[in-house]
């Protein structure tokens, strides 16, 4: 079906909202409360547009596109309305991009930039940080919260952990954990879905604070090393230090749809651990390990295993391959055991 957006005819799919059709055609409409996964909320009203034949401004995230619909998202009338929404949000929170972790990846910043807002028009005198860092991996600064409700939808409808909700009323409204407990003392399992979906810098990965700006990281997609679900990860890598700074779930991955668990998202310290093995080790006669070269270590292995194979028979040797290694490495391992050591004694811990 076709709709007219800002005088241009664009293609829209059946069941798409005006916002989705615009996005798929490369036209930006500011949104804050809407996320593909949590669906239309119709709350923040940053995405309002004019629709011919409909009275007043419409939230484009919740109105379905209809064939022949005529929509305007760039009239002064629309932009003024969007501006007011974003201006008020900027004014009622402590949105200081200079020091904010979300700088460069913030939906509010992006909307303000698009609408040409430098600073909020109104400033509260008493705006102070309101940080809860009682949790190991996730931090919330309520002074940056825009009450869009994405984290609540994420917690209750996406990962269904049912921890987050709105507490208090009206101007006092804030995100609470369980019965308004500190995050670290609540039933939160720290899956991090809320931080993944927070459009601003209110809920963030605590351990990435101060480790670099969004645009400084290389993003590498790979697969989680823990359980067998095969969640797709986006590693944020700092090339200067050769280290992983944070991990996000890949939203369009069919296995996990952006979701991760506390291990997959935060349990990556082992990669950069200083306890990693960095050189081959050989145990001397006194039972102590000493460092060895690859040449020496592999020579010794070939000599010892050849001797055992030829003296006691190949079936006195066992190879244990790994459910944590790749397909390619499992393949080369069993090929080595079967061809060079002449035994089919290959197994792994599928049973354990």
């Amino acid at each position: 079906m076709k709709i007219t957006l800002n005088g241009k005819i664009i293609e829209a799919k059946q069941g798409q909202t005006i916002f989705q059709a615009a996005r798929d055609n490369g036209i930006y409409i500011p949104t804050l409360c809407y996320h593909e996964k949590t669906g239309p909320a119709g709350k923040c009203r940053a995405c309002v547009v004019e629709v011919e034949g409909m009275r007043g401004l419409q939230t484009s995230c919740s109105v379905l596109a209809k064939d022949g619909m005529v929509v305007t998202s760039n009239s002064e009338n629309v932009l003024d309305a969007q501006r007011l929404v974003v201006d008020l949000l900027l004014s009622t929170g402590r949105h200081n991009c200079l020091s904010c972790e979300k700088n460069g990846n913030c939906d509010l910043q992006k909307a303000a930039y698009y609408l040409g807002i430098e600073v909020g028009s109104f400033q509260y005198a008493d705006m102070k940080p309101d940080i809860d860092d009682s949790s190991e991996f996730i931090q919330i600064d309520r002074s940056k919260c825009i009450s869009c409700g994405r984290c609540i939808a994420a917690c209750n409808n996406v990962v269904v952990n049912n921890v987050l909700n709105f507490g208090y009323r009206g101007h006092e409204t804030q995100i609470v954990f369980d019965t308004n407990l500190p995050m670290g003392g609540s039933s939160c399992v720290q899956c991090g879905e809320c931080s993944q979906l927070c459009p601003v810098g209110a809920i963030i990965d605590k351990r990435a604070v101060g480790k670099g700006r969004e645009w400084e990281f290389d993003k590498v997609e790979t697969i989680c090393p823990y359980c067998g679900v095969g969640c797709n990860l986006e590693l944020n890598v700092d090339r200067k230090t050769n280290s992983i700074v944070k991990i996000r779930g890949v939203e369009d991955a069919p296995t996990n749809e952006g979701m991760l668990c506390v291990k997959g998202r935060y349990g990556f310290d082992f990669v950069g651990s200083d306890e990693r093995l960095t050189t081959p080790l050989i145990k001397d006669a006194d039972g102590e390990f000493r460092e060895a070269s690859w040449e020496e270590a592999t020579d010794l292995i070939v000599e010892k295993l050849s001797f055992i194979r030829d003296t006691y028979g190949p079936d006195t040797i066992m190879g244990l391959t790994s459910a944590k290694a790749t397909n390619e490495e499992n393949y080369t391992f069993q090929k080595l055991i079967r061809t060079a050591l002449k035994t089919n004694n290959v197994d792994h811990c599928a049973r354990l």
Partner: protein
Amino acid sequence: MAGLAAAFGSGAMTNDIAGIKKSDVALIIGSDTSEAHPVIAARIKQAVNEGTLKLIVIDPKHIKMADFATIYASQRPGTDVAVLNGIMNYIIQHGLEDKDFIKERVEGFEELKKEVAKFTPEYTEKITGIPAKTIEEIGELYGNAKVAALYYAMGITQHTTGVDNVKSTANLQMLCGNMGVEGGGVNPLRGQSNVQGACDLAGLPNVYCGYQKIGVEEIHVKMEKFWQAELNKKPGIPMTVAFDKAYDGEMKAFYIMGENPMISDPDLNHIEKAIKNLDFLVVEDIFLTETAKMADVVLPASTYAEKDGTFTNTERRVQVLHKAVDAPGQAKHDWEIHQMLAKKFGYDWNYSCAEDIFEEIRRCTPSYAGMTYKRLEKNRGLHWPCPTEDHPGTPVLHVGKFAKGKGTMFAVPFKEPAELPDKEYPIYLTTGRILQQFHTGTMSRKTDGLNNIAGPHALVSVEDAEELGIGNSENIKITSRRGSIVTKAIVTKRMPKGTIFVPFHFHEAPANILTNNALDPIAKIPEYKVAACKLEKA
């Protein structure tokens, strides 16, 4: 896996993860899904939340998923066959079985019917402790479902009756015609990132890649030619048997890549003696693990973030890994190490990257033949079997026909676990995973935050805690016939009286000091889920 292979002709998860949206009932038995497979748990909870799915949970422990269940039942540990036979008997007695499916696609129904006939709700209650009325309710809900999915994990397999348990899950799904359809299936959730791939790529003693049987002359000739090497015709032995043989002095050398049996295996004292008996031990790993410390030579390998390659997930989806950071020091990719050794053994291996190896894998693994890195990237993975480059992959197995032709139902009699509580050891011990840690802890325990939220502990029922006179977080001593550990007790209503749960991740309080190394006679899997123990205040 042996159980599913016998029933269907293929031993993998039959359906895909996304299929949960098509199920109207799901049964979780022997999987603490939200702890061990949290993202799959989330998708099941989503479906319950959206009202498209009714959930049945059967587990001795009142797991979190039970909070989302329409029906929850707590069975006595080790009585899964009786539970499933009881449900099937109800379904057959009330004519709820899928008669057309049974007639067209299944053999062995009459034998099954005869065996389960004695499992009346009352008899089932007597064995399992699940009220007869609950068995009836489960039978009613499950039997009337249009499409029902069955999920299990190690809670079904880690028993001396593991293969029997698996066969029973297959029986139930065939009985209700839940096979070969979206949203149905027997879905064993695999516990490690590439356990499916390790099986597919012949990390098993009795098969070549793609489950081509060792001992078949034609396959033997083909593989000798393919690898340009003389091969042993005799199938190998499984790991658990190899440890027993090492204990008896019959094994001389182990080469262990990325495994830590000194934490993960049953009856650790036995394992330690077995390893000490070896003439030569090579360990290839990322850390100096408990097992690596016992090695003669240790080789430094790479983590997932340092390499390209593929993992095959629980739903048989092959996905591509990309290198993100450099490995430290002289650490190498495992395949580079294997190539170095192969060359020194006189074999001319010349792989220059992981993709080279994958191209070779395709040529000797029929179910992977149609996959290329390019296709895998484009589709974000493909499900095997994918035999040709124009094949879309197979999210649902056994559509229209089972891999082996007709599916086989097995009459499975109930057997008690190898070790039952008695006067001296009156408590059931069961072991497993928790959300915040992974397997032997080699990876997860290097993150302090994870240790801060989850350290060594045991889950103890309120009743047992009262009897012992202990409060929450007090230490208890747990003793089995194999040994003792001391750990912190978390007193919880989630545990039934007379059963304690100990996670196996912690070297400070290793659960596997206590576990029984009695094996399933076919799958050779140890009975981690049931042992007898006693508790004392420590």
